[in-house]
Structures are given as structure tokens and as C-alpha cells.
């Protein structure tokens, strides 16, 4: 557990951290995000004391880190930087075993760690262990950068925009890999980025900072639903705007439906169903108001006894009004009351229907943005 207790830092007269307090739980994946100069990297670096705060304290597992030996503290915390920073004079194997060697692990143990680590990212030992950093791609180098941070099994790993210099494809692969490794090894990770997609993709908790202060600390869902300020909205971009107004039935209903008049004959209605490939029809009263529905099942059962559909019309299907929250209709469908919800205008005429497909489409719009 990491605890920031009223931490401040100034460079000259310019405050970079202004009375920052927060808590990070064990095994949590926390992403620090915000515009450049907001203090996110400074916050990160106070955790391994690459930067010493002017005021306040940082505690790890209840222990005040300013009282701990700097060098020992850093050996117990993994650290990954944007420029990767693999030592060019060392092979992959030597780079991974830097911290284990500093901790004076014996050779056999170091070698075992290197094997385990490379296995974690599916890079065969024989192929990669003796390569130098310059002989690998950027993505492979940063994988090794992550492994170097993990090698001595620190409970906490700090990552300072680790994928900032990688191409988008490699970045998304590495994001997934790091997330998988974090869950598997149950690490506490503090991750700095300025990319909201990255934050939403990886974080358990997002801490949004601006001008040296925490503006909002929330889960990705909470932040999407209730961004605290306009600045956060901007960072979220389109994703939030889609969500702002609750959707009404009108937004999600489809207006292509098949209706018939209550005075029509049974045979006629069956023909219409067959032609259109549907198994129910909406039925209108002579004054165009909604009368109910008629289904092919009922017609099969009782149809021979009647000439007109009037007797077969039911109002079993759920109904809602056009300006009601779409959520109500979704709930009715989800509870299994019929296959669709009939949407009515306030004058009781038919406006449209909401089907399960409408729900899927509405959800897709929320997740991927309004594609059409």
C-alpha cells in the first residue's frame, strides 16, 4: 500500500505538487494522467525518491520512505522509463539480472530468474538472452525493460510513460501483456501516461492531475460517467459526449415495422406475415391508435374459428411511450416479457418498436462511438 500524505514540491517558486494526498491499494493498477506539467511524473518519482518532496510524507506499507535507505528502497521498487534505458553495454541477460545482482543473488538464482522472465513474455532464452539492446526492435527492448523492473520480484512497479515511444500496434500489444503480467503476479503498478485510451484500457483506478493537484480519482467507468471537470471531459474526448444525455425510447427504436388494421381478415394477415417474414403484426384501431398484436402462433391455434383478427389481438406485449427512458424498455426485454417493446406516441398511435437488436446497437454506439 502506498500513501501520499499532504505531499508538496516546488521548483524555485513554481509549485509542481500542491498538497497531494491519496492512497493506492496493494495489487492495484493505478494510472496517473493529466496534461504535461501537471505533476504526474513528479508524483511517480517521489515514490522511489528520485525526487524528494519539500513537504509531506510518502508511506509504503506504513513505513515513511524518507527514513529508508534510498538505494535499498529503489531495489525494492521496479522502475520502467519511457526511453527504455536498457544498458547498451550489457546483454539482455545482464540487463535483466541487474537488480538481482545488486541484491547479491547467486549466479544460479540470477540465471533462473532470467529464464522465468523471458518465458513470461514468450521470448526464447536461447534466441534473446545474449543479444544486445541495439540488436532488438523497440517493442522487444521495452519488454526487456519491463522484465528488468520485475526481475527481483518487487511488490511495486513504477512505469513512466513506458510505451510513449512505441508505434500504436506494439503499444497496444504491450499494454495487454503488462496488464496480464500484473494480474498474474499481483503487482501494484503506478503508471504515468497522457493517453486516455491507455488509461481506460489498463487502469483499476485513474488519478487525474492538473497543476500539481488531484482533480479526480475514480475507476475508468466512474470517470467516463461523471468526469469532474471540463478538462477531464476534453481528455476523454468523444467517449463522454455520447453518454451525456440518457437515451429515450425514440433514440433506439426502429421505425420499420409491419402493422395491420383490426378489421382485416385472418387469411390476409397470414399472407402479410409470410411476405414480410415476421411472426407477429402490430394491430391498429380504425382511428390509428394501437390496438395490440397478433401472432402467427395464435392464428395457428384459433385462426380457423374466426374470420377477422379482432378476436386474436392481445395486449400482452410490453408497451412504452416515445419519450420514456430507453432503459425501461431494455429492462422489460431483459426480463423476458415478449420479443419486442411497442413504442407509442403520446396520442396512442404507434411510433416504432424496440427489439433486442436495438439494444445491441445502442450499446455498440456507447462502446465504439457513434459509427453512423
Amino acid at each position, binding site marked *: 500500500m502506498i500513501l501520499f500524505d499532504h505531499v508538496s514540491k516546488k521548483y524555485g517558486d513554481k509549485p509542481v505538487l500542491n498538497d497531494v494526498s491519496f492512497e493506492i491499494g496493494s495489487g492495484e493498477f493505478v494510472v496517473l494522467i493529466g496534461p504535461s506539467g501537471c505533476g504526474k511524473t513528479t508524483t511517480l518519482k517521489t515514490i522511489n525518491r*528520485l525526487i524528494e518532496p519539500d513537504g509531506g510524507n510518502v508511506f509504503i506499507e506504513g513505513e515513511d520512505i524518507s527514513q529508508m535507505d534510498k538505494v535499498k528502497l*529503489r531495489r525494492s521498487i521496479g522502475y520502467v*522509463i519511457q*526511453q527504455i*534505458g536498457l544498458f547498451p553495454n550489457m546483454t539482455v541477460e545482464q540487463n535483466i539480472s541487474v537488480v538481482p545482482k545488486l541484491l547479491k543473488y547467486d549466479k544460479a538464482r540470477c540465471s533462473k530468474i532470467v529464464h522465468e522472465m523471458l518465458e513470461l513474455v514468450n521470448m526464447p532464452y536461447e534466441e534473446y538472452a545474449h543479444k*544486445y539492446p*541495439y540488436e532488438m526492435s523497440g517493442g522487444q527492448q521495452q519488454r526487456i525493460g519491463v522484465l528488468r523492473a520485475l526481475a527481483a520480484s518487487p511488490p511495486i512497479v513504477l512505469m513512466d510513460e513506458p510505451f510513449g515511444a512505441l508505434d500504436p500496434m506494439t503499444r497496444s500489444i504491450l499494454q495487454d501483456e503488462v496488464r496480464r503480467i500484473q494480474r498474474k503476479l499481483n503487482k501494484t503498478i503506478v503508471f504515468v501516461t497522457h493517453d486516455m485510451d491507455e488509461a481506460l484500457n489498463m487502469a483499476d483506478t485513474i488519478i487525474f492531475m492538473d497543476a500539481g493537484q488531484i482533480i479526480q480519482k475514480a475507476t475508468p467507468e466512474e470517470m467516463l460517467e461523471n468526469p469532474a471537470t471540463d478538462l477531464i471531459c476534453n481528455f476523454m474526448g468523444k467517449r463522454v459526449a455520447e453518454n451525456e444525455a440518457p437515451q429515450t425510447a425514440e433514440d433506439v427504436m426502429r421505425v420499420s415495422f409491419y402493422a395491420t388494421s383490426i378489421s382485416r381478415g385472418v387469411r390476409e394477415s397470414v399472407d402479410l406475415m409470410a411476405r414480410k417474414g415476421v411472426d407477429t403484426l402490430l394491430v391498429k384501431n380504425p382511428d390509428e391508435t394501437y390496438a395490440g398484436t397478433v401472432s402467427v402462433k395464435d392464428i395457428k391455434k384459433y385462426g380457423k374459428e374466426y374470420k377477422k383478427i379482432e378476436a386474436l389481438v392481445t395486449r400482452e406485449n410490453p408497451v412504452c411511450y416515445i419519450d420514456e427512458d430507453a432503459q425501461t424498455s431494455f429492462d422489460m426485454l431483459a426480463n423476458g416479457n415478449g420479443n419486442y417493446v411497442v413504442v407509442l406516441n403520446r396520442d396512442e398511435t404507434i411510433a416504432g418498436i424496440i427489439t433486442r437488436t436495438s439494444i445491441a446497437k445502442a450499446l455498440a454506439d456507447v462502446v465504439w462511438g457513434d459509427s453512423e
Partner: protein
Amino acid sequence: MIRFFELYGKRLLTAVGVHFLYVVVSVTIAFVVAILLGVLLSRVPRWARVILPLLSIFQTIPGIVFVGILFLYNGMVPSTVIIALTIYAIFPILKNTYVGILEVPDEYIEAAKGCGMSPIQTLLQVELPLAMPVIISGLRMSTVYTVSWAVLAAMIGLGGLGELIYAGVSSNNNTLILGGAISAALMAVGFSLLIDLLHKLVLPRSLRRDAL
């Protein structure tokens, strides 16, 4: 040619031996001193900005003047030559050590600190190894210069290849002059090749010139 070796062979061999010793001893001492000083200066770049230009001015004092002055104080002993050569050999290595360490990109220093290396571990495991190509090229420069400066040893009667050259000049014996000069040139080339070999043996393939 054969007559030359019959006549001067033994003298040449002694001269080459003495010359070689002067170079090896003074460059070795200079290398150790220069690296220590270079590391110290790299810790306080503010001083280095004053000290290095001063040293480079000192470097422009002709060797012959310096050997002469040192001779007055120290007398006609081999240590006079060694001290003079060492002092001259220090500067190229010192400067390259300092520059080499300062040129190590910040990201590696930050990574080293972040991994939990103490300052001395950072120096030994990251800064010096990364500066090594530059340091070795300083060593090459120093060694080649020292081979030629060592000729001055003969000026105060302390042997080396310079002795043949001076003897040749004073007795108008061109063969003797050429014998000394060519040997000195060959020695410089030899040292240079030796340092190339050292470069290959000491540096990992990632730091050799062809990799960078």
C-alpha cells in the same frame, strides 16, 4: 642494411627497449591518474569548465622546455623523463574520460538510479563502460604522442631512440638518423595496433565503433 644492423644492432636494440619502457611506464601511470581525475572532474562539471582549458594551455608548452626545467630540479635520472612524459600523456586521456562520462545519456543514469545502483555502482557498471570507447581513443592519442615525445629523453642523455637521432645529427650520419626515426615511427604504429586489439577485447560488441 645488413651493415647497419652489424654496426648499430646492439645499440638500436637497447634504444628501442629503453624507449618502449619509457612509453609503457608513463602511459600506464598517466592512464590511471587521468581516469581518476576525469571521474573526479565529471562529478563537478563546474570546476572542469575552468580546469580543462587551463590544462590545455599547459599542454601547448613545448615538451623540450618542460623536460629542460624538470632536469634542473630533478637531475639526470630516468624519473625526470617518466614524470615529463606522464604529465603530457595525462591530458588526452583525462579530457576524453571527462567528455565520455558527461556524454553518457541521462536515461541510462536515471535507469541505473531507478534500479537501485549506488553512485559508485552507477560509475563502474554504467558510466565508465559507456565512456570506454571515448577513453580508449584518448589512450591511443596519448600513446602515439608519447612515442614521439620520448625522443626528447636523449636531450638530457637518458637514451631511447632519440639518442640515435641526436648522434646521427651531430656526426652527420643519415643512416643513424633514419634508423632511430623509422624505429620510432614503427613503434607508434605498433602501439596503435595494440590498442585496436585492446579495443576489441575489452569492449562488448555493442560499444565497438562499427556498432555505433
